[in-house]
């Protein structure tokens, strides 16, 4: 009997500390919350160089129908060492992830980034088209 009581007290003790459980909200493989949103678009784009200063020569144009981001960069921009920065619709995420500087120097073969909606059901590939000033 005493053993059962000890176990019960121990469980009670740990329950006090650990029982604050989060609601059962779904998360994806990145630990990000899966919501009900279906919006799926690039809303803004920035490209900065190794000095973290913009290399754009003008505001980028984002065609959400054709799913293309057009960027014009300054003369002499070192496109092997740039950091692209995407702004997305609420709750969206991007594939592939941008974890550091990227090589975007192959202008003939534009890189494609896929936007995934908040509910993770809609996927829209965006082509990043870069040209020099």
């Amino acid at each position, binding site marked *: 009997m005493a053993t059962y*009581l*000890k176990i019960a007290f121990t469980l009670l003790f740990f329950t006090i500390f650990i029982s604050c459980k989060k609601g059962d909200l779904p998360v994806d493989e990145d630990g990000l919350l899966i919501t009900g949103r279906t919006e799926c678009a690039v809303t803004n784009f920035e490209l900065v*160089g190794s000095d973290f200063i913009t290399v754009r020569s003008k505001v980028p144009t984002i065609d959400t129908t054709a799913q293309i981001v057009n960027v014009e960069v300054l*003369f*002499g921009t070192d496109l092997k060492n740039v950091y692209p920065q995407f702004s997305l619709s609420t709750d969206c995420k991007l594939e592939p992830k941008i974890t550091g500087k990227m090589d975007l120097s192959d202008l003939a073969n534009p890189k494609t980034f896929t936007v995934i909606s908040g509910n993770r059901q809609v996927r829209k590939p965006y082509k990043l088209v870069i040209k020099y000033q």
Partner: protein
Amino acid sequence: MKLKVELIKYPLFLLLIVLAAFGCKEKEYAIPDPVSQLSNDCIKRSLGPNLVGFLPIEFTYAMALPKVQGKLVSAQVEASIAGAAGTFLENRSFFTNAGGQDIPVTVATPSVNEANKTRVTFNVDTNAATLRYFYTIPEEARGKSVSFTFSATSSDGKTVTFNMGPYTISKMDIKRNLAVSNNNAAYISIENMVVYNATDAAANPGKVDLVYLYRTTPTSFTHALVSPAAEAQYLPGVVLPAGVNRSSKILKANIIEANLVRSFGTYTSQTASGVYIDDKDFMDINLSASPNYATGLRAEQGTWVETSDGKYRAYIFLNSINTNGSAVISILRYTLQ
């Protein structure tokens, strides 16, 4: 009955564990004992990497003893590597007045350097002093460590010592405020850390790593550092002296390095921010994917550079730029081989 005791004992046991885990009490502050004998203390005042031939390493050494026990006789600093010319221990003691200014009071004869020792002898009756020590870094200390032993003696025959260091002496070299100008003093040598005009560049073609140029078209070209071997579109209108053909890797950066931006005797807000480039930064940076040109450079911006022979890495900082096609640059260089 036994069960009742268990019921009481077990929660108490748990409470004890909780108290043991969280009940550590902070140690209360105790007023230190007043100085009862000859004592000393030391701080290092200078910041950043220790560069040969640049600013000295600066310390402040304080020593005191109760008046009833006597007075200070001498103070000495022993460096593990003898300091270069210009190494000295102040013979003036400083105190800070109400306005925050450091006020000197002469308390000793000027310091004397003997081998790796620097010594002053007190010539006033004082039982407390704070002396500054300036160690001019010698060439032989480059890449090594240097330590210091501060010591003071008093008239009652006591001696105290204070050890500082070891401090690593950088392998870097620094050259500041070099004027460059379009089509004139435009040829930069990392190896010699100088700027050549076309005539001197022709005489030293193997030493020229970069060309400074300024162009208004295209509008984003402006101030640029370009390797002689770069594509012609990055050297518009430039006729290179014979044999000038090296190709350095260049990467733009935005580091306002404190020693490069510093004006002697004054401290700007940037130097106060204390951003320094050290040997490790040069060792770690990878410039293999960098181009051989950098255009559109701005004032207080810099570029990492690696020479074509892989012998040097450098950080070239633009202190100032001028739209007449000139700039002032400073170079921090690290020897790789």
